[in-house]
């Protein structure tokens, strides 16, 4: 903390209140966020390398990592594909109910995850509106990785749409006109002019959706069935270990997941800087 205060030289400004507001910001940030997260890392370091290694490479844990990773990446890819289409339609076309659909994109942010979890499970179970038709066809969704993926698509859906939308709005029609007057067909224009421009935003949306899926818990637990080695995601395994008072196991998994989140956060920050710089260049 002292380090922070050392860096923060009192800036010259006639506006009062810097000491008070900055002091409170750092105090509150420390007690709510930094110290608790620090506690997790300290706890992990106190385990010792062997114990930590054993806890994180246990077969059941590794299976949960794999499942979490695969389902998250598939969900993020599906969200990216449909998210770009949805964003395109919302920006470029007029259609019936557009405003309602636009507002509804944020539903997964606003709806508690437990509620979306039980709604999706009911929908895809063998008696549900979708499940009753899908199960006779051989698609079992509830209590399988497909179900987990559907829940992850649901919670990651807003990210791609909401990052791609503004970058599509800023596109200059002149570029497309230039491309087409130079003889490009529409697909070439999209592929060679539009897509490269919105690509950083698409990638950011993908990364956000993926990062969110990695840590998701509430919407997944109901539909996954939570069978060890089959449908047990990493966040659920943390809770299972905690309930068995296996703090070592829980800490080890939590630290690995937290480190992955931090790497994702760094990656997303770099992406966002890249996309804002690209936009800045176009303004010139």
């Amino acid at each position, binding site marked *: 903390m002292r380090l922070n205060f050392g860096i923060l030289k009192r800036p010259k400004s006639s506006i009062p209140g810097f000491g008070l507001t*900055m002091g409170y910001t750092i105090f509150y940030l420390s007690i709510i966020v930094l110290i608790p997260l620090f506690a997790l890392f300290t706890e992990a370091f106190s385990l010792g390398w062997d114990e930590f290694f054993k806890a994180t490479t246990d077969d059941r844990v590794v299976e949960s990592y794999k499942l979490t990773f695969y389902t998250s990446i598939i969900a993020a890819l599906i969200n990216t594909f449909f998210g770009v289409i949805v964003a395109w339609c919302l920006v470029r076309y007029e259609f019936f109910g557009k405003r309602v659909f636009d507002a509804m994109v944020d539903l997964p942010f606003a*709806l508690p995850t*437990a509620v979306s979890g039980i709604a999706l499970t009911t929908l895809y179970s063998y008696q549900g509106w979708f499940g009753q038709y899908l199960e006779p066809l051989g698609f079992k969704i509830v209590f399988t990785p497909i179900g987990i993926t559907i829940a992850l698509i649901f919670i990651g859906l807003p990210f791609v749409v909401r990052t791609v939308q503004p970058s599509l709005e800023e596109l200059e029609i002149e570029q497309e006109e230039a491309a087409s007057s130079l003889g490009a067909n529409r697909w070439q224009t999209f592929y060679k002019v539009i897509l490269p421009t919105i690509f950083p935003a698409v990638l950011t949306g993908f990364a956000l959706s993926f990062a969110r899926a990695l840590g998701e818990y509430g919407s997944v637990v109901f539909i996954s069935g939570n069978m060890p080695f089959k449908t047990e995601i990493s966040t659920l395994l*943390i809770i299972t270990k905690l309930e068995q008072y296996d703090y070592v196991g829980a800490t080890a998994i939590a630290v690995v997941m937290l480190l992955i989140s931090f790497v994702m956060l760094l990656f997303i920050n770099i992406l966002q800087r890249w996309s804002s710089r690209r936009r800045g260049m176009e303004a010139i």
Partner: protein
Amino acid sequence: MKTFNNSNGAQSESKLVKYLLIFTAISFLSIMLLIPLITIFAEAFRKGVEAYFLAFSDEYVLQAIKLTVITALIAVPLNLVFGVCASWAIAKYSFFGKSFLITLIDLPFAVSPVISGFVYVLLFGAQGWFGSWLIENDVQIIFAVPGIVLATIFVTFPFVARELIPLMQEQGNDEEQAALLLGASGLQTFFKVTLPNIKWGLLYGVILCNARAMGEFGAVSVVSGHIQGVTNTMPLQVEILYNEYNFVAAFAVSTLLAILALLTLVLKYILEWKVRRQLQKLKEEE
């Protein structure tokens, strides 16, 4: 978008492609969002209106509603005060390490909800850092209301700040400096100049913060201990009812949360429009 050659596919897609894309988008949003939303209400009223309202005569459900409201009433104002302080410190002054500080404030969004709850168990749980001290002094945080409030504060931590920081940065210092020059005190300047300028952004942050505070499940689940009538919030009560195969009651409680979500979306939509218009005005003035 009006172009002359809409149909020949040079500057714009053919009608077929356009309708295909709209069809895809609407189908995707309907299957993934609209139908799950309708399911909640359909399941809640599956056995009629009476069965629906019967769910709310349950003592545990009422206590869960009460705890949810109390938690939000504590967490939201605390994060509101923090959000205003942080955005004042960040937007009104220039200092080294600003973007790092903003990243730290955003950190809780990157942390899995389960881990957000878990860190407090490590600090305040029976085996945690302060565990033995807390037991000696007969203070219970984990598996009690304080833990639920703490976990809720953690997951809703950035909402107000991240809304206000860009807004206040855009607005700059000119109006505040004018007020101070004319003899207003710091607090007067804040309440009479800054606050009216940021009120829509502030409200926007508060509404999102509140929705998440009332709906948080993962983080609260870790610290709650699931004691019915004592440490169960609404989302946790939904889980218990669902696991007891009491589907109508589970979905009945869910409808309240869904209505809250829909209200949040409507307000969000209106406020976004207001904030955007305010920012546009600022840009025009420049």
